[in-house]
């Protein structure tokens, strides 16, 4: 236990300041205020992997590491779309996930935001053009459900993801 506490003390706080939300040079505090004004509470996100290779998920996981400290910014991943303000979706949407993604979208209460993640999910770049529409994939996220913001990258960095999430909140 002592070793554990020592380790915690030695590590200190490594969280870095949040990046700015894309092209709009807004202050992070301002964004937090906006989140509160729009949603009246912290932002909750349901992540849906609709066919990715899992690299996007690794970066979404990284958002929760102490450097990016997503929860510290009042943004939390939740276990059900029914508890979510935002769907964070990776793809290309496979035929085998098409129905599940539609159901998750329908289950998310309004007003809801959808952020498409990765070149496959956004249908852009060299990688994004590899899949769909074909027998196994429908294509990018917007081919199945409405998308508010796209975060390209293969996979997008945690910073890009954070910018995308903040940009989506700002749009509403």
């Amino acid at each position, binding site marked *: 236990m002592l*070793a*554990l506490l020592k*380790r*915690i003390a030695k*590590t200190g706080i*490594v969280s870095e300041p949040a990046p700015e939300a894309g092209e709009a040079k807004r202050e992070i505090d301002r964004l937090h205020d906006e989140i509160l004004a729009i949603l009246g509470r912290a932002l909750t996100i349901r*992540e*849906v*992997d*609709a*066919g*990715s*290779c*899992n*690299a*996007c*998920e*690794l*970066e*979404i*996981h*990284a958002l*929760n*590491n*102490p*450097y990016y400290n997503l929860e510290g910014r009042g943004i939390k*991943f939740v*276990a*059900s*779309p029914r508890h979510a303000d935002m769907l964070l979706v990776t793809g*290309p949407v*496979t*035929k*085998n*996930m*098409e*129905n*599940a993604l539609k159901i*998750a979208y329908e289950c998310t209460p309004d007003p809801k935001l959808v952020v498409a993640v990765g070149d496959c999910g956004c249908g852009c770049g*060299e*990688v994004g053009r*590899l*899949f*769909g529409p*074909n*027998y*196994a*994939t429908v294509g990018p996220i917007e081919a199945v459900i409405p998308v508010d913001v796209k975060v390209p990258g*293969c*996979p997008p*960095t945690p910073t890009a993801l954070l910018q995308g999430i903040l940009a989506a909140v700002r749009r509403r």
Partner: protein
Amino acid sequence: MFLFDDIPIDFALQPGLGSPVWRGRSNDADDLKDFAASVHLAGGRLSALWGSDCRDIGQGFRLDVVFGLNEGHAWLRIDLPEEAPVYPDISSIFPAANRMQRAARDLTGIRQAGGDQRPWLRHGGWPADWYPLRHDASVPPESENAPTDYPFVVVAGDGVHEIPVGPIHAGIIEPGHFRFSVVGERILRLEERLGYQHKGIEQRARGADLATGALLVGRVSGDSTVAFAWAYAAALEAACGIEPSPRALVLRALLLERERVANHLGDLGALGNDAALAFGLAQFMRLKEDWLRLNAALFGHRYLMDRIVPGGVACDLDAAAAAALLVQCDAIEREVRELRAIYDEHSGLQDRFVTTGAIDAALARELSLTGFAARAAGLILDGRAHRHGYTPPPPYASLGVRPATREEGDVAARAAVRFDEIFESLRLLRRLVTELPTGELRRELAPVPNAEGLGVIEGWRGEVIVGVRLDATGRIARLHPHDPSWQGWPALEHAVMKDIVPDFPLINKSFNLSYSGQDI
């Protein structure tokens, strides 16, 4: 040469630097069962199985089966007649064959006689009599993509009920469906239904150029992109008769070990978290982030995608970068040693880890399990290490890799093996950096028409295999990537059987299998 005295199939050693692969061919499907039985008797394993349609070049249908033997791999090709592409079911000899055979049928229509006939990759998205990997399959027929019924094995009895989970799970994780049959909390049976990540990578690769093939294979499973890229490159290099420079090979090993360490760091943190030690998650995630950031700084990509290319590598390491790498190895080693002591002494954590999700060596062997999960159950099986009759491919041959093993096969053993492997990888990284040979990074790889090759790489999760065949114009005729998760998922079904539902996330994470890697 004959690999088994009583089976007259002539095998020839695949040329090149990769791990030893013997290629053999038979046009009698019955040979498959005899050969599989001999491999089983010799203590070998089923490594991969896939089907192909070669009617367009007048060769009927074809089944490729790769077996793992002590001395390397036997790559057996069975030619099947056009009018009846049927072969004997080998899942009674190697249970791991079950899902591979069903996937081959869904994709090509080549089928096993008897055994489990349920579809595997095809849910409701395309018709049952339409096979995407047939050369004459053009546009898939219109279908409504309606969910289909799937006949799960039913467990009946007093108080037995089912818990269906997924395809969308509660965490940030890939989709799949788990059907638990339970009494109270106790798991009687787990049956997985996967295939949700199936995105048609093999069909997409048909007719593609080698660069597109590399892009595709690097995205079979995001956490194993280095292993897949290397296996693909090794397969093509064997097929086209070129050898990468010693410098390229050392850089490849360096990338592979960095991938291994990154994944073990992440999973050790997640294992702490699943046993309610959030401290572990925060600490290991911090270390993993440091590791990924150096990847980005030195090699230009956090997960090292597209850094290994056919013929060599697409990155280099200068003196300053080598120094930064050595500094990080020391720092990570120091911190992981401290954290290991905390994990080992944390009674709450050990209480959840010890005896949980156990599989023994006999079962691991029966299920053809490879990688760290097999090593945690007492199988000394590591493609990077010397063993009786087997010399690892360069640069590992000269490094004297010491495989990490445990006997218990439980969550604690898998965690311990991961800790040991981090330290061994750090040792290897230091040697690779300090002994980096000079030479070119990439040699020109000119596609040889109709050539074929098999690449085998010890990825962080286990044996990663890629089979490639080129067409008459030097483009890809068939690409099959095989993830060790094919063998891991059935092992997970067994591992949970003596435990309770709340232990499932912990056991699952201790294997951390890929969905996308096996759904392809």
